[in-house]
């Protein structure tokens, strides 16, 4: 049975139709204009706070402390639903943020990355290869059991157990033994001195759980089915996969300074930028960290909430994969980096919420105890001012095959990455190189990070990585440490490898800085990556609330517990 669809009208009908069409178009246009309304004023004041480098926006470490309790906080994880709530398997924004609300670490960070007592109330370093932690007494897990040194030993050892498939094993690579040496004392001994370990104990690597609980739920710990058992200010009330995670205030939390202000937290998983922005504007969401840069102009003009920018430890880089082609040549990589206008990228792609970056690890990650050395060394690196002429010259006088197409891989569906990659493509064409963009689905893209065969046919990848703490060795461990998963080009310069290994064993901040900056001078000369920007942390918070930390340290703080009424 054929069904015919046709539009017709007699003369009068046709005129009416035309008039109606125009009227409807006007209405639709009006609606579109209405929806596009909202001035996007860009603030370009630059007032960096202590230690933070100049960004295109005003940067702060924290918001004003909250004064009162609230009933419910509705939060969003812009990275989507966490794949796990097991601290030993968490290496991404969503799981890290969520776990930090529930799991106490051995030590605790402040918003400006100083180290305070956590579950360990004191600690000492009696000799270079020994750290001793004195565990706080009378701390209770949510199930009422008391935290013991045995729980701490078990929790730390999980990071070294292959059956657990831990993600932070790299920080434990020099650990010889973890033993209970007293009723509330844990001693960690090392095969060689390790200056990074103690700092990492203030991050998720220092997570502590209840041994008996994990042993009972071994294969399901950290999933919606098996749940988790921690000591933190929020307890896991429900996890509805695909829908939300609900946290409930822990009324017996040991640390009154971080006791939860909100009675419950509803954590949503809205990833779609448009939906997220609308939800923040309408007030259905009270806030979110990691707000995408593309939403900044619209959110700036929200009457219900405010954007806050904090010092960040996330780096946006273009990383070579080591495949044969123009990008296997360090000189050509350097030329491409030289052609990039980093300041323009910061304002156009990141809407000012970033700082141009010129090294593998950014200025915000400089060791606070040796800033002078890092600053001087950074100044000596080839500058961030673009020089297209010189770049063109390098390309034209190169002996490599510059006509071969360079494939640049990025995450499909990510507006920021697409804009970023497009700028790189444009810069390349300016200097005589041809870049083709390859948008990869999330699974393939993340596989390409970890599995070499997935990088076949790809020359460059857009990467957004983050450091846990201001210590370049945290990131360098992933490139040149004992388990280097990001050394895709198989870079083996002996000076770099030796310096990185030695620096890891050096407690003296200045000596360590000398070693790191010497290695940096070498590997940046070899352009192991094309660094572009260090993004600020972007937080959106309802104007009803305050107390949230704004620096990237938020990710290892019980940040949501700190949010309350203004």
């Amino acid at each position, binding site marked *: 049975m054929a069904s015919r669809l*046709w539009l017709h009208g007699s003369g009068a009908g046709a005129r009416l139709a035309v008039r109606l069409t125009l009227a*409807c178009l006007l209405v*639709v246009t009006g*609606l579109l204009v209405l929806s596009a309304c909202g001035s996007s004023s860009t603030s370009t004041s630059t007032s960096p706070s202590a230690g933070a480098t100049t960004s295109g926006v005003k940067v702060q470490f924290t918001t004003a402390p909250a004064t009162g309790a609230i009933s419910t906080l509705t939060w969003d994880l812009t990275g989507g639903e966490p*794949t796990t709530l097991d601290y030993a398997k968490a290496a991404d924004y969503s799981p890290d943020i969520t776990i930090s609300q529930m799991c106490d670490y051995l030590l605790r960070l402040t918003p400006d990355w100083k180290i305070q007592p956590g579950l360990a109330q004191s600690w000492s370093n009696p000799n270079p290869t020994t750290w001793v932690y004195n565990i706080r007494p009378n701390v209770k897990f949510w199930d009422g059991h008391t935290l013991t040194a045995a729980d701490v030993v078990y929790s730390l050892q999980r990071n070294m157990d*292959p059956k657990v498939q831990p993600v932070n094993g790299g920080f434990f690579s020099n650990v010889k033994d973890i033993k209970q040496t007293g009723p509330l004392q844990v001693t960690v001994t090392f095969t060689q001195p390790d200056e990074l370990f103690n700092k990492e104990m203030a991050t998720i690597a220092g997570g502590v759980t209840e041994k008996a609980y994990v042993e009972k739920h071994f294969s399901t710990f950290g999933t919606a089915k098996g749940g988790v058992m921690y000591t933190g200010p929020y307890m896991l009330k429900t996890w509805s996969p695909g829908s939300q995670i609900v946290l409930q205030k822990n009324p017996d939390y040991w640390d009154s300074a971080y006791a939860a202000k909100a009675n419950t937290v509803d954590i949503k998983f809205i990833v779609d930028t448009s939906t997220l922005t609308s*939800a923040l504007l309408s007030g259905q969401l009270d806030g979110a960290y990691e707000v995408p840069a593309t939403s900044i102009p619209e959110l700036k003009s929200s009457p219900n909430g405010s954007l806050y920018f904090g010092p960040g430890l996330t780096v946006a880089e273009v990383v070579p994969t080591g495949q044969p082609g123009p990008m296997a040549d360090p000189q050509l990589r350097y030329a491409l980096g030289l052609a990039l206008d980093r300041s323009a990228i910061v304002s156009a792609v990141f809407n000012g919420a970033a700082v141009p970056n010129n090294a593998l690890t950014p200025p915000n990650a400089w060791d606070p105890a040796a800033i002078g050395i890092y600053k001087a060394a950074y100044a000596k690196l080839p500058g961030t001012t673009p020089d297209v002429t010189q770049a063109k010259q390098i390309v034209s006088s190169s002996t490599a095959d510059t006509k071969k197409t360079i494939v640049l891989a990025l995450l499909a569906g990510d507006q920021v990455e697409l804009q970023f990659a497009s700028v790189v493509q444009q810069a390349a064409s300016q200097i005589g190189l041809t870049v083709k963009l390859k948008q990869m689905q999330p699974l393939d893209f993340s596989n390409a990070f970890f599995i070499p065969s997935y990088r076949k046919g790809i020359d460059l990848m857009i990467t957004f990585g983050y450091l846990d703490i201001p210590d370049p060795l945290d990131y360098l461990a992933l490139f040149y440490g004992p388990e280097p998963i990001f050394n895709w080009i198989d870079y083996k310069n002996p000076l770099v490898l030796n310096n990185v290994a030695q620096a890891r064993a050096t407690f003296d901040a200045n000596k360590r800085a000398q070693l790191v900056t010497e290695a940096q001078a070498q590997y940046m000369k070899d352009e192991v990556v094309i660094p572009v920007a260090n993004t600020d942390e972007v937080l959106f918070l309802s104007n009803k609330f305050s107390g949230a930390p704004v620096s990237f340290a938020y990710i290892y703080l019980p940040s949501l517990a700190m949010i309350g009424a203004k």
Partner: protein
Amino acid sequence: MLRFVVQRLISLVLTLIVASVVIYGALYLAPGDPATLLAGGHVTPSIIHQIHVQYHLNDPVYVRYWDWLTGILHGDLGQSFVYREPVTTLIAPRIGNTLFLVSYASIVILVVGIALGITAGLTRRISSAITVGTGIGLATPSFVAAILLITVFAVDLGWFPVFGAGVGFTNRLWHLTLPAMALAISWVAYVSQLTRTSIKEELVREHVETARSRGIPENLVVRRHVLRNAWIPITTVAGLTVAGLIAGDVVVEQAFGIAGLGSFLVQATSQKDVAVVQTIALLLVVVFVVVNAIVDLVNGALDPRLTVSGRG
């Protein structure tokens, strides 16, 4: 009637088997290794290997398909790689959301679409206005409609929430109104145009002219002689609409952050979460076949010439 049901059941089972083979094969051929997902983060080649062995990811595709098929026959729909939970527990809450949304949208589409179509079919001047109005709806993709609706009614006016499916009947109604509208906008045009066409065709039929010339009042002519016959293409389209909605609601679920089958299917496909994709896809096949069977039954009741044992 019994023959009809048995025939349809057999065809359903055959369709399901073929569909399951095609879907399984397609997923297998699609690039992507779920091992990194299963590991949950940083992996080394040795961990990848461990996972491949643990989840039988290196077994030949027919072995893995057979394992899956035998599992289904025992009522085990499999486990999600991503969530490490049985597929049934993951799908259960989502079915409710999608069902509510699709039913809500269907009611709006059918009621409004058919009403507009009948009006357009029986009148002249209003007909053009309806054609143009619904034409604009037809040209609007659901995602654009979603963004427009959210911006105007959720953000600017604050009458409805931006995202989520809600809990409980009235709360769900409130949450799913904008999504249902976004879904309905394109389909209303389709249904109303088809209804209008069908009615206009019937209006010029000989038996209608005959009825008029016999002096039967116009409204009786319309009800008994026009509408009754015009229903058949309308019910067919209605069936197609409902089935099409189930597939089309993916976009709307994504835009409105609704935890439903559509968004879950897309997510699971991109993550190569095989058990989830199979289950949802086969569920859609079942719904489609059942809806078509209902349409055939209804058409048979409306027009005895289209009895269920014959072909229309």
